[in-house]
């Protein structure tokens, strides 16, 4: 059976709770604040939200169900997405189906996390059984260690250089200028600075790594009819895919699940990658941006470095990528980082940007990548969104 279209579903109210480097507040504050802001943006009451989809790493034992009690809600549909970088697109997909089937009318989708100096190391330490038993004893390199291996392998196999990854980091930093939510947005980053940065896990250096922070991202999913009735600028979902643990026998990851499903994505959308006005991808490390350029069909496998040498990823360029600055410039607010691509895509195509807008943007691709339980991330997802005034 073919993937059924996402007809009749609207995505509205892109919401960002301003990131901070450290927060004394619990994750619950960030979830609640995002809920407060997202319903305010849509002009609806809390009681109208009858579906709640959450993702967070720092809520301790609590999940979505505990939040309903925390905030006096009685939704008829909830979802919990402990899938980090893929959770935003996954929440979107699940919420859209719930609205289509009538299981919910208005779904609030929220990714939120707090951060303090101890929380990141704690999170990494308890991330998965495999990483605890088979990675942590090797110097506790965390995700930096595994993505250093993926990056080094990619460089050796395809001839990419540090400068190629630098092009990603520096163009995203340029995109962050003017985005008040980008914690590093006011700090200029040029290629010399990128190349001169201290090593973290070679070949990764400081500006290849995201800065952990606290923050939240959110959006609402409802019927198109309701969005129009509320007079809200909105996006429709032209197509969407999801895949987990793709290519699990490959000794070092050179591709991920998008490569398995992109034909379906573009067939659903009825357009190809060339039609995208902007691309919002998960950027835990520059090599993963390069991988998405390839696996989502913007260039052939192994050719991202060549692509980067001839195409700027800046807002003014031919293919604007991570127009908010991405996590590499905004900071990585835990699971909110997995919502950032969806929220920024929605901002761009509905004209609600925090920083600069891609002129006339109408079609955007948002992509997610999450959960490094051993030596690669397992979850991939993507969606093509179209803005409607």
């Amino acid at each position: 059976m073919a993937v059924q279209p996402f007809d009749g579903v609207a995505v509205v109210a892109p919401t960002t709770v301003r990131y901070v480097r450290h927060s004394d507040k619990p994750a619950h504050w960030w979830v609640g604040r995002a809920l407060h802001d997202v319903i305010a943006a849509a002009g609806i009451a809390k009681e109208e939200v009858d579906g709640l989809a959450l993702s967070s790493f720092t809520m301790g034992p609590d999940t979505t169900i505990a939040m309903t009690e925390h905030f006096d809600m009685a939704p008829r549909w909830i979802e919990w997405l402990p899938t980090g970088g893929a959770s935003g697109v996954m929440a979107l997909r699940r919420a859209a189906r719930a609205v289509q089937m009538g299981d919910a009318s208005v779904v609030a989708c929220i990714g939120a996390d707090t951060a303090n100096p101890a929380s990141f190391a704690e999170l990494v330490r308890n991330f998965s059984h495999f990483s605890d038993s088979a990675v942590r004893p090797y110097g506790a390199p965390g995700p930096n260690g595994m993505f250093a291996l993926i990056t080094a392998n990619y460089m050796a196999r395809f001839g990419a250089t540090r400068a190629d990854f630098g092009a990603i980091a520096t163009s995203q930093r340029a995109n962050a200028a003017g985005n008040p939510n980008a914690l590093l947005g006011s700090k200029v980053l040029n290629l010399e600075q990128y190349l001169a940065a201290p090593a973290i896990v070679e070949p990764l250096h400081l500006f290849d790594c995201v800065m952990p922070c606290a923050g939240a991202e959110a959006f609402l999913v409802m019927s198109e009819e309701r969005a129009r009735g509320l007079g809200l600028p909105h996006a429709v979902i032209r197509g969407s895919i999801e895949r987990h643990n793709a290519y699990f026998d490959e000794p070092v990851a050179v591709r991920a699940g998008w490569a398995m499903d992109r034909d379906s994505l573009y067939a659903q959308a009825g357009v190809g990658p060339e039609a995208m006005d902007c691309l919002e991808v998960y950027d835990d490390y520059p090599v993963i941006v390069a991988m998405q350029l390839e696996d989502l069909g913007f260039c052939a496998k192994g050719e991202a470095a060549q692509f980067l040498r001839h195409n700027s990823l800046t807002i003014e360029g031919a293919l604007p990528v991570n127009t908010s600055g991405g996590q590499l410039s905004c900071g990585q607010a835990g699971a909110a980082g997995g919502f950032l691509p969806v929220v920024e895509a929605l901002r761009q195509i509905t004209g609600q940007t925090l920083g600069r807008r891609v002129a006339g943007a109408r079609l955007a691709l948002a992509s997610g990548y999450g959960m490094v339980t051993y030596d690669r991330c397992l979850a991939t997802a993507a969606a093509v969104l179209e803005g409607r005034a």
Partner: protein
Amino acid sequence: MTITLQGCAQCGARQYPPRALCRACLADALRPVEETGEGRLIVSAIVHRSLEPGFAGDLPLRIGTVHLDCGLRIIAFVDAGLVDGQSVRLRQEAGAVALWHAGALEAGV
């Protein structure tokens, strides 16, 4: 010198990291199996920063992905002098957590 891995008595699959059941056929038939430990060092990286202060005195550390001839991949410490892509032999250092080390194939143990 061989290494010990988790294997399935029903379908013959090998697995790492260890699992609760066979990853391939899901049988509850796991037992230790001996393998040569020979494989290829696909890629390595140098850890300069650890997330845990306890490792500070050991840095920098070299880690790598070894692709064993039996098809498994294992994250291991990498001996000095090895080059990415070369054939290696894994050995297991006894301890509370048995750590993997990749060494030159000729050296044996």
